């Protein structure tokens, strides 16, 4: 079941409206714009604490033209469980129940509710918009923060713990759908959302969302950085569906390491990696190579 979308098939209507309170170049708003279009506003978003609780705006105004339920930090997948079950009882199809969460909510504090909802295969689309730190509280390291990155809680040496491989963990929950996406590849994300919406059960989408103030790059460069992450092989777009794991088209050529742009090009644009040691750079590179090895092996196993 492949879902191919042409650019001219994407609705012109906006469901994430201008005039929100996000920083310029905010990746969450780019992601939410695509989510809104994919479901023409007919989705129920459950949003735990994070930038996305704040940026839609102040009552009585909102920049999200969808049903939006803001909930406490750790609770979103469980609240979504209740909503999705209640809608099932009511027998009403009003579009997907979507958790839209940050990486802090997903990798760390909400990990138990995420895992619990996944093993129960709740009928939810879970999207983690991953900006690799706790941005709303001012850039503290999260379970997703890249090795070597400086945050306000890894201020001088950079993060020394490895990042949690959330996609593989979710894959091993044996849920029907796991995918990575990127705000730099809106068609790929859009197609994945549509595909996910055609599947029942717990669907997990990991969206790459570089944050200008958090990563310390110019706010005009959000998309460029996100694209570089794919082109350097640092972010791998893939999809697991119907028992098959495949590397997504935009990432395919980068399986060949010689086709990748140098990692340095990607890191140099980000203040959080400024002055990173050669040794740490090597460690990051090894991690990326390992991720490719794992995914390629998995794509053979799930083929």
């Amino acid at each position, binding site marked *: 079941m492949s879902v191919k979308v042409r650019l001219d098939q994407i609705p012109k209507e906006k469901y994430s409206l201008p005039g929100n309170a996000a920083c310029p170049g905010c990746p969450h708003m780019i992601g939410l714009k695509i989510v809104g279009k994919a479901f023409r*506003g*007919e989705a*129920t978003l*459950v949003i735990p604490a994070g930038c996305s*609780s*704040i940026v*839609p*705006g*102040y*009552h009585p105004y*909102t920049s*999200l*033209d*969808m*049903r*939006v*339920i*803001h*909930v*406490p930090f*750790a*609770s979103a*997948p*469980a*609240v*979504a*469980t*209740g*909503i*999705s*079950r*209640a*809608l*099932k*009882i*009511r027998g*009403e*199809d*009003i*579009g997907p129940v979507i958790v839209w969460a940050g990486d802090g909510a997903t990798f760390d504090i909400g990990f*138990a*509710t995420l*895992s*619990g*909802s996944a093993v*129960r295969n709740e009928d939810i689309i879970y999207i983690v918009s991953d900006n690799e730190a706790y941005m709303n509280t001012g850039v503290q390291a999260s379970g997703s923060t890249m090795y070597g990155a400086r945050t306000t809680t890894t201020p001088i040496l950079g993060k020394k713990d490895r990042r949690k491989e959330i996609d593989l963990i979710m894959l091993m929950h044996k849920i029907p759908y796991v995918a990575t996406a990127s705000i730099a590849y809106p068609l790929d994300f859009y197609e994945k959302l549509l595909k996910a919406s055609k599947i029942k059960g717990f669907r997990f989408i990991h969206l790459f969302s570089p944050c200008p103030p958090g990563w310390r790059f110019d706010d005009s460069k959000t998309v460029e950085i996100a694209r570089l992450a794919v082109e350097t092989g640092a972010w791998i777009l893939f999809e697991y569906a119907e028992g098959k794991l495949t590397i997504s088209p935009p990432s395919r050529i980068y399986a060949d390491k010689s086709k990748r742009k140098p990692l340095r090009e990607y890191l140099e644009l980000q203040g959080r990696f400024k002055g990173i040691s050669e040794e740490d750079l090597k460690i990051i590179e090894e991690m990326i190579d390992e991720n490719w090895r794992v995914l390629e092996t998995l794509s053979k196993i799930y083929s």
Partner: protein
Amino acid sequence: MGSMGRVKTALIGNHAVAYAVKMARVKFIAAYPITPQTIIVEKLAEMVEKGELEAEFVNVESEFAALSATMGAAMAGARAFTATSSHGLLYMYEMIWWAAGARVPFVMAVANRAIGPPWNIHTDHNDILTMRDSGWIISMAENVQETFDLIIQSYRIAEDQRVLLPVAVGLEGFILSHTAEYIELPDQWDVDSFLPSRDPDKPYRFKAGERYTVGGLGSDENYMMLKIAAEKAMINAEQVINEVDRDFGKIFGREYGGLVERYKVDDAKYLVISTGSWSGTIKQAVDILRDEGYPVGLLRLRFIRPFPSMDISKNISGVRGVIVFDRDISLGRGGIIASETQPYVGESSSFWGVVAGLGGVDVSSREFADVIKMFISEHESNGFSRRDLLFYMNGEVFEL
């Protein structure tokens, strides 16, 4: 006509809760085990698996998730239920505030249990009383029949458009949760006529084409306005609780008195105030004292929130003395119900606040009678006695 289907049967409190949930036609249940609550969700699981109860039953990974999921289901229009106790309740704490603040109507049973350390599975009211300021309606059952009845009543209260708040029903761990009593199970037809099915679109409309935001960012004034609106709902709840209890009485033949139950209060010169199952024991103490010629009565608080201020002030005006028994303590302040009752006690009336029975320590009717007698004799010999915080354990009344 409905009375044809009534049956007398022996049930433990936990099973009574499960039967009440079933008869209330609850559609969503979240389950997480903790002693002494566990049997409630086990029984419900059995009912759902046997097909006796048509509901979504979710085995969640924690109490935090249980309350989150229950809130979500109730938000989206399902009649929802969960149950917990002690540490489980504390683990839910963030969601307790959120559920009430978002005005989501549903019911949670709390099998009251002490909070460690040391580990102790016996009863105490401190767990449910941590919900006091959150905006939940809080009730406490005296016996198994009332536990059943309160669950049914609570859905009516929670879902009333004048209220729209979650309701907690306290049943004491082991004393009620695990003790079988003969109770009358009503006819399903009667329950249905008392408790109409839930309007799924109130307070939130989950409908195609409907767009809105719940719980987003608001101004400080906005926040305060919502708190004031919730307080108004609490004030409305007093009337609703009284109405619901009267209606319940008409259909089921049992009426409890609304927010409070009055036991031999009319001609009482000394008033005892308490809540929960030991009120039954205190009633025996009142009977003993009445036999001995003491004009004593009991005011049992069926609800802690809204606090029955009016009922209390009405009933204690003119009495010589008020003695409150607390099975809880706000450390640094004393018995919670005593401290909340105190403002309504007249200047010239004697007042004792007695903390007892913490962590399940037993107090017999004879012991209650003795403490009440001490209170009366101190009043009568001195003309007045005021002790905000006394403790009672194993035959001894003491002050720190």
